């Protein structure tokens, strides 16, 4: 009897899981007892934290892009064919081309997407950097910016919760290098009544904002943008003018999740420790796709992929498992062009940011290169 594993999604979560499973189950695969099929919608795999560096001309697009087929263990079958329906009761995934993939175990790693269209005026009035084209567009706008007020705002939910702070601190250093700090006012807004969801990070960031003269406002949830008058309005009733608006648009999960009735807004109900879908213990959900109240970040995807690969390996090889996810997340946080800090936390341990240092910045730059080993399931 052949055990079929289908992984939907070729981002960090899906790719790492597939490669770890291929290594763990190598003998089963080569003897024909296990088949791993990975279904994804793009031939390219992008290291998404790299977009921030593209914005500031510190990485070229090709440096943060690899072919998906080059990252995968050759024992994994890759299909570039977007999933359009997931039928959990009949254990089958249907793709855009009409192909059907039946499975014994499914890993749903379909990720998230930005939905700027959900905020009126955002598409016309704002820059962002959560895809390659937009990151390049923002880079060019910053190169040509002659001075004025730059607003930084974000939607809920959004992935990579440290990105807004990183962007702001890097903007500060960008204009400092150009001797333009006297011509530029940075104005950061945040949806809750602090500047970051993690209190220790927020306390540190406020001190940095005040030291650097960066204006900030809290309880600001984008409601509407007037791209003609250059005004952004919030649900809370505040309005601010701007010369350049940079946002992180709100996110949703993949359309296939909603189309398959697996979860509202594309987020799938997921057991926070065992990582399977409620009522379907053969369906694992990882990365941005889960509804677990935890950061949507590459690091989360990475540690969850480790857990799911170990769980599946144990279940297939030995019939049971005790491996669980403890909520671990690790993030570097660039505090400018030259220094970075670092946080880790889990379900029970709050973060405690280290003092920013050049060493941590270099480690972050090093990890940007080492990521390809993570994707391959080596690091």
């Amino acid at each position, binding site marked *: 009897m052949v055990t079929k594993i289908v992984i939907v999604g070729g981002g960090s979560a899906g790719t790492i899981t597939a490669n770890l499973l291929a290594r763990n189950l190598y003998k089963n695969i080569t003897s024909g007892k296990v088949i791993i099929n990975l279904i994804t919608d793009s031939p390219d795999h992008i290291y998404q934290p790299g977009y921030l560096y593209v914005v500031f001309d510190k990485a070229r697009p090709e440096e943060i892009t690899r072919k998906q087929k080059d990252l995968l263990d050759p024992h994994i079958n890759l299909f570039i064919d977007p999933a359009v329906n997931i039928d959990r009761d009949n254990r089958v995934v249907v793709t855009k081309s009409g192909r059907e993939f039946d499975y014994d175990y499914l890993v749903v790693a379909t990720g998230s997407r930005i939905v700027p269209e959900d905020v009126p005026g955002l598409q016309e009035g704002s820059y962002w950097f959560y895809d390659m084209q937009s990151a390049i567009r923002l880079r060019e706008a910053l190169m040509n910016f002659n001075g004025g007020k730059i607003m930084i705002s974000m939607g809920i939910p959004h992935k990579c919760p440290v990105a807004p702070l990183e962007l702001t601190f890097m903007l500060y250093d960008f204009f400092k290098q150009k001797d333009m700090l006297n011509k530029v006012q940075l104005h950061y807004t945040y949806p809750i*009544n602090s500047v970051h969801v993690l209190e220790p990070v927020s306390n540190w960031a406020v001190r940095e904002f005040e030291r650097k003269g960066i204006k900030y406002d809290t309880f600001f949830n984008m409601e509407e943008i007037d791209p003609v008058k250059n005004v952004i309005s919030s649900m809370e009733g505040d309005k601010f003018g701007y010369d350049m608006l940079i946002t992180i648009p709100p996110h949703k999960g993949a359309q296939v999740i909603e189309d398959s009735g697996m979860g509202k807004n594309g987020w799938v109900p997921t057991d926070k420790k065992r990582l399977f879908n409620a009522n379907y213990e053969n369906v694992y959900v990882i990365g941005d796709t889960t509804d677990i109240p935890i950061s949507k970040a590459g690091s989360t995807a990475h540690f969850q992929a480790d857990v799911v690969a170990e769980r599946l390996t144990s279940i297939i090889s030995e019939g049971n498992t005790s491996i669980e996810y403890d909520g671990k997340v690790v993030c570097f946080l660039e505090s400018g062009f030259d220094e970075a800090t670092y946080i880790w936390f889990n*379900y029970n341990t709050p973060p405690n940011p280290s003092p920013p240092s050049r060493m941590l910045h270099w480690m972050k730059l090093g990890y940007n290169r080492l990521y390809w080993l993570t994707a391959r399931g080596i690091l």
Partner: protein
Amino acid sequence: MDDFSIDKVVDTRGSLCPGPIMALIEAVKLADINTVIEFFFEDEQSVKDASLWINKVGNQLLVNETVDGYFRIVVKKVK
């Protein structure tokens, strides 16, 4: 006994990041007008922050109480 029916429940206990208030704002933003949402928090500061935001935006705080060591609030979206 409550004289309204709950449309949605959001349990933020154990949420460090993105955190309880982010979860509350997201749930209220995505809800339809007149939706009643019940939230559970594990710390008092979150309740204070939640009340502040609900009043600032102009929605209705129907319940604010302590249950078995946790905090329960119920919000009706009217704006």
